[in-house]
């Protein structure tokens, strides 16, 4: 069959469609966004009526997927690594409910923090939930593993976690497809109480999950993805997890790797094969594009085993691996990366003509008399307001934290405290925090910088479109303290005076600077919708 040229993300999406997935759930987040986008643009998905609308956040995505699984259909949910923190409650409990239709969870981790605030390794979540994890080496693996994962999920009555990293998510290669499967029919769970996690039921099901661990281990041990390649030089054994195998292989081009190599790409870890490698080799190097997850296990607290990796300094403790780093760990060969001094850093910046800029300039002016250090921002393009020349914000922690951090600071006496949050981030995780502030009538000023889109990830639809004032009123913000303006340099004085007025108000104010994201001007549907809603 002809190969398709697909990003790792796209290979995952195509595999899910071919495996008969009926619905996909996600919230945009680099590097996972292209999985959902591929489904949204797929003709095959449209013809089969596959659900592909963005959700409000990762928790609602996960719960909708659990619901679809309950109804007997195959479903997938994908998110960036930190998204799984948001969905963790549902995710961990889904391991205990088990599944009806196959449920596959994709986490796209971001070692080196190319586009993230941390580099957490979500294999820990898989282990935490006591479920199997697949970690592909390449795009074809990603396809095959997702395809197999649906089968496995139904066979073992458990969600399956697929863990990729940025490099695989955003790298293209040829991928061969497999046979297209029909969708499952709607069927209710055989046990009507399967999804009722009352303690009495949860205890029984948790025991089942624990009992299943040996089956998962046995499956890992004979998995086609955990491959033991023997080598003649037993001075070193290498455990290569997921994509790190490519960086190892790169250093031996077309020649055979002289050392025994165990590829670990399906978890729980294949203990017997690891024991074999340890027994045969003098020492073992563990390669992982993430935290020293396997390394720590193999090393153990007693530190009796000769294990090299991220913990002993053979590899850097943080950041993404590459072929040179792996080579250095094996041969000791150093490499120097010297960029000519004339080259300057070119950090990302807010686009020319962006509405966030005008909002920040007005906010900075209005805040002069109160002094610095009182603006709590959030996750999105507007986080770039932290940089020169704006220096407009003092925090960016997690989705929604702007409002609640402003509240906490105001509780401490830092008044006025300001929150800056985007429209999509507000509906993701800002609404509940606003309710906390309303209940206490906290003296905070919340700026919802509304650009009608999820900008940083490429302009996906925002759930907030046309709904912001009603949401804020519904939560209980006084209508006279919900102020909307059009952020342009022409309106500068008006914006400053509106912000100044609300900073003086000793209760919850919401200010909405509202102007369409300049990157979405070519999106005809959005332009038409904005016109229809009379938002501009």
């Amino acid at each position, binding site marked *: 069959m002809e190969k398709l*040229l697909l990003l790792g993300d796209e290979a995952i999406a195509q595999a899910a469609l071919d495996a008969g997935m009926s619905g996909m759930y996600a919230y945009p987040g680099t590097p996972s966004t*292209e999985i959902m986008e591929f489904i949204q643009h797929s003709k095959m998905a449209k013809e089969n009526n596959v659900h592909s609308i963005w959700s409000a956040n990762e928790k609602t995505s996960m719960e909708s997927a659990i619901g679809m699984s309950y109804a007997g259909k195959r479903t997938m949910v994908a998110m960036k690594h930190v998204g799984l923190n948001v969905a963790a409650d549902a995710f961990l409990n889904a391991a205990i409910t088990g599944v009806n239709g196959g449920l596959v969870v994709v986490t796209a981790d971001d070692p080196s923090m190319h*586009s993230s605030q941390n580099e957490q390794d979500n294999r820990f979540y898989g282990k935490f939930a006591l479920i199997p994890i697949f970690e592909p080496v390449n795009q074809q693996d990603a396809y095959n593993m997702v395809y197999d994962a649906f089968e496995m999920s139904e066979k073992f009555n458990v969600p399956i976690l697929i863990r990729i990293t940025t490099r695989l998510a955003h790298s*293209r290669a040829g991928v061969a497809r497999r046979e297209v499967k029909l969708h499952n029919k709607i069927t209710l769970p055989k046990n009507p109480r399967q999804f009722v996690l009352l303690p009495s039921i949860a205890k029984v099901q948790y025991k089942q999950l624990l009992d299943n661990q040996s089956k998962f281990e046995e499956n890992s041990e004979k998995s086609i993805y955990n491959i033991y390649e023997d080598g003649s030089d037993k001075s070193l054994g290498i455990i290569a997890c997921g994509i790190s195998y490519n960086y190892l292989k790169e250093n031996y081009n077309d020649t055979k790797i002289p050392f025994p190599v165990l590829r670990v790409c399906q978890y729980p870890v294949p203990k017997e094969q690891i024991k074999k490698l340890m027994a045969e080799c003098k020492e073992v190097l563990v390669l992982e594009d993430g935290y020293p997850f396997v390394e720590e296990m193999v090393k153990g607290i007693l530190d009796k085993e000769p294990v090299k990796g991220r913990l002993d300094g053979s590899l850097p403790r943080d950041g993404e691996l*590459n072929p040179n780093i792996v080579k250095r760990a094996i041969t000791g060969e150093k490499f120097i990366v010297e*960029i000519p001094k*004339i080259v*300057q850093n*070119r950090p990302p910046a807010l686009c020319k003509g962006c509405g966030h800029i005008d909002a920040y300039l007005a906010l900075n002016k209005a805040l002069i008399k109160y002094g610095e250090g009182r603006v709590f921002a959030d996750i999105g393009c507007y986080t770039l307001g932290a940089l020169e020349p704006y220096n407009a914000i003092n925090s960016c922690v997690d989705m929604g934290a702007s409002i609640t951090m402003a509240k906490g600071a105001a509780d401490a006496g830092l008044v006025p405290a300001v929150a800056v949050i985007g429209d999509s981030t507000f509906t993701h995780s800002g609404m509940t925090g606003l309710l906390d502030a309303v209940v206490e009538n906290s003296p905070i000023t919340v700026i919802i910088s509304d650009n009608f889109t999820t900008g940083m990830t490429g302009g996906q639809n925002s759930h907030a479109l046309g709904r912001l004032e009603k949401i804020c009123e519904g939560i209980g913000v006084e209508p006279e303290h919900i102020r909307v303006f059009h952020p342009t340099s022409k309106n500068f004085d008006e914006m400053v005076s509106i912000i100044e007025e609300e900073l003086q108000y000793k209760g919850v104010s919401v200010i909405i600077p509202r102007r369409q994201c300049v990157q979405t001007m070519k999106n005809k549907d959005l332009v038409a919708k904005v016109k229809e809603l009379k938002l501009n």
Partner: protein
Amino acid sequence: MKSDIILAGVGGQGIVSIAATIGTAALIEGLNLKQSEVHGMSQRGGDVSSNMRVSSNEIASDLIPYGQADLILSVEPMEALRYLPFLSESGWLVTNSEPFINIDNYPNLDELLEKIKSLPRNVIINADKIAAEVGSRRSSNIVMLGAASHFIDMDFDAFKKGITQIFAKKGTETVDVNIKALEAGRKFVEENYKF
């Protein structure tokens, strides 16, 4: 056959189209391909790059090791130098001469071009000007691909076919302009450089 290429530029400058064209051309030639690119935050005016690997053999790593790239193809002069540690001892650096200035401390352009000229194998081309001459400033990136095509071990016709496929949706006029841009870039190097 093996070509390891670093594509360099600034978010929004169209290196994705260059990558797509080379990728499609490689598929037409029946070659293996891996192409890693940058999405997300850096696309907002930050530096972006793509690792493009084409080979008749299987390709292991999505990332090109330092000192192994056969070609740095940059649509912006300062960005060309950022990836110098990747260039192999026999590799070529092909760059647009026109700067994209969105930072206050952008270096002196003459000094920048001098630094590039001091490298043993370099091509500097005003792709913006050539693109305007063939009919569309926006095809400057494809002029760059034409200039660099000398250093990619693939049939030139495959690039033309690649362009025809990639731009087909945008109509024959767009396809024609981009083919012209590709040819003009190639011709410029033929006439002005010996290699």
